[in-house]
């Protein structure tokens, strides 16, 4: 069961990242792209967590923490940038 769950989760999360990339490319505005980028951050954290648990390589969990931190800071920075009046 855990084999099937791992494969299902990896395929599903990977295709979710691809769908979010479609939104990232299509836009049409900068906030849309920031939302897609934020979602990609969360999805990559999920991918890393599933990979770390299924291969028992625990060191990659620290990478997941760092990616979650950076995604949050990037989103807040983009929010400030948009709010100051550079919407394109």
């Amino acid at each position: 069961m855990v084999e099937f769950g791992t494969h299902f989760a990896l395929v599903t999360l990977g295709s979710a990242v691809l769908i979010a990339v479609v939104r990232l490319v299509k836009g049409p505005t900068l906030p849309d792209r920031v939302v897609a980028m934020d979602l990609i951050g969360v999805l990559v954290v999920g991918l890393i967590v599933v990979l770390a648990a299924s291969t028992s390589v625990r060191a990659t969990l620290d990478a997941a923490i760092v990616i979650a931190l950076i995604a949050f800071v990037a989103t807040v920075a983009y929010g400030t940038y948009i709010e100051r009046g550079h919407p394109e």
Partner: protein
Amino acid sequence: MTDVIVGVMWIVGSSFAFLAAVGVLRMPDVFTRMQASTKASTLGLGCLLIGAALQLADLPSIVRLASIGAFVFLTTPVSAHVIARAAYHADIPLWDGTVLDERRPLTAPERQTNQPEIG
């Protein structure tokens, strides 16, 4: 038994994360996209983290997974709020089917069109 729970948790969590991505692709404007992304992705990531904690089952991993979960659960609403506020102030157009924009009379009354009266 643990294997079955881990597998189910990962299937449920990745399905929710996939639904978040579909919502971000299909929803009509930035505000609806954002709510699809934040709600479904926090729930999905929560299930993935519980499954990973059951699978690894040692203290250092569980502490790291719990800190990822706490951090993401605390920061996702904050970042969604920041982006929504920024998009609204940057005059990103709302969806055509929007029925009520309660903030428009407060920020720019002269641009108010077809909005119901507040109060």
